[in-house]
């Protein structure tokens, strides 16, 4: 979630790629244990995710990253109980696809979120479905699977609070977290 720790990971990933002579050819393994970006996360000690103070994410147009050309719109929204990509957001996804194709070392976490209704672990599954839907779209657009990782937050990180449809609609989302 936090930009700075991701940035560290990115630097690490890039330098590892150099050292390893770019061995990122594990295409077919991706999505199974082969794509264990979990091992990257495992390398960080427990709790290291808490070191940087302020959380930052997409939508903020003033970050250093966005100056490097990451599309500024980083959140798309979903209908209730749906994981289909609304046509109005296809241009957003295309812009990210274009950026990722042009920057094969760039990686993004697709964070899936739901509104607060229903049970938490089931919503974890629904959030994953939304992020998977975006992942499939990106793959079809020619983005390498190795650049994408899905993390579902379910209903755990609502963007706004409130038991009304307005709030729910803002919480049913997938965020591109670079």
């Amino acid at each position, binding site marked *: 979630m936090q930009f700075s720790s991701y940035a560290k990971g990115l630097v690490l990933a890039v330098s590892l790629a150099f050292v390893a002579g770019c061995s990122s050819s594990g295409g077919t393994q991706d999505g199974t244990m082969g794509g264990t*970006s979990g091992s990257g996360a495992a390398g960080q000690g427990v*709790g290291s995710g808490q070191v940087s103070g302020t959380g*930052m994410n997409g939508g903020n147009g003033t970050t250093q990253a966005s100056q490097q050309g990451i599309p500024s719109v980083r959140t798309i929204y979903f209908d209730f109980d749906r994981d289909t990509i609304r046509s109005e957001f296809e241009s957003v996804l295309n812009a990210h696809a274009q950026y990722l194709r042009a920057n094969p070392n760039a990686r993004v976490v697709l964070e899936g979120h739901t509104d607060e209704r229903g*049970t938490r672990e089931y919503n974890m599954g629904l959030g994953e479905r939304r992020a998977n839907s975006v992942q499939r779209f990106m793959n079809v657009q020619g983005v390498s699977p190795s650049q994408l*990782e899905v993390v579902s937050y379910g209903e*755990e990180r609502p963007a706004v609070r409130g038991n009304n449809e307005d709030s729910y609609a803002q919480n049913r989302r997938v965020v591109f977290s670079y």
Partner: protein
Amino acid sequence: MKPLLNLWLAAVLVLFAAQAQANLTIEITRGSDRAVPIAIVPFAVEGGGSLPDDVAQVISDNLERSGQFDPLSRNSLIARPSSSGEVNYRDWRAVDADYLVVGQAREEGSNYRMQFELMDIYGQRRMIGEVVTSDRNELRSAAHYMSDQIFEAITGLRGAFSTRIAYVTSEGVGDDMRFALYIADADGRNSQEILSSDEPILSPAWSPDGTKLAYVSFETERPAIYIQDLATSQRVRATSFPGINGAPAWSPDGRRLAMSLSKDGQPEIYIMNIAERSFERMTNSSSIDTEPSWSPDGRSIVFTSDRSGGPQLFQLDVASKQVERLTFTGNYNARGRYSPDGDSLFLIHRGNNGYQVARQDLGSNRLTTLTDTRWDESPSVAPNGSMVIFATQQGNNGVLGAVSADGRAAFRLPAARGDVREPAWSPFLN
């Protein structure tokens, strides 16, 4: 499996945040019409004065919260006896008390030696009496013990007042949030922080012996299941597969953990053998399969799946992996938990009034809604089956609620600030 093993061995010590307090208060929201009237007289202290904690009041609050008792108010107590010998049964019949509790205490160094007695007013007899010695700082625990004895003597059901609850608090929104995992006494007092994080914490689950909690934490920015020993604070990361690592549930023998893992592409139910760190996949469908919970006999697991459309509860036979659908009322039934006798399920049911705690009788398959709140989640059953604790909303805040298993009595446990959710009722601890 190798990295997992290494992670397992890398046990991490988590320090208790010494003074972190998030005590919950209790508001009774619905009293039962069948509650039994009982008089509880303040304990007499030898040499005068009063106890540092009002033991009689703690007992009274406990019994009232169970929904099965209606304690008389203090100003309607007709006399203040402190032992059975001083009781005039006719007096108490006059004020319609069915039962009477009296007690006396004597200070002995840093301890109090307390005697309590329970009388059956109509039977005109003393039912139980016991001497309890307690440190002056542990008087509430002693009162919970006495409540357990009184409850069992009258109802025949083991009391669950000496148990604890785990729960999660959160503050903030979006990327600026703070999460914490707490355990507290069943009455919401004596809370203790177990873990805090800027990343989500959810799904705490007590081991059957009450010594450990399994839970999901996103502290590495990815979900992982941890098992933490409550006495030593030592913990291990049990799983950190790609994708969802969620919904840990202990088998009744404490050796296995059922969970939901999405490493195969969608959430599936797995069983982990904790000692061997081996995993067995139990479901196989393209749907979301999650929220497993073991039957008391350990032979089956109830879980949530949307394989037939909306989420419904299914029962998995652990030996054969055969799956059978259990719920058919309405289009949203999730997060099932067995009653301790295995005869019914508590679950979240979506009806016309929102998401509510319901009970389904497994004999008749009849489903009954128990709550009148609209945003209920996470039902967790007391070890004696008498109450269900759950998360719900009060205004825009997450609070804990509890309802008696028959739906007749209910109370709320709001927090002073922030949201509270994900309650998990401990097993019997004594």
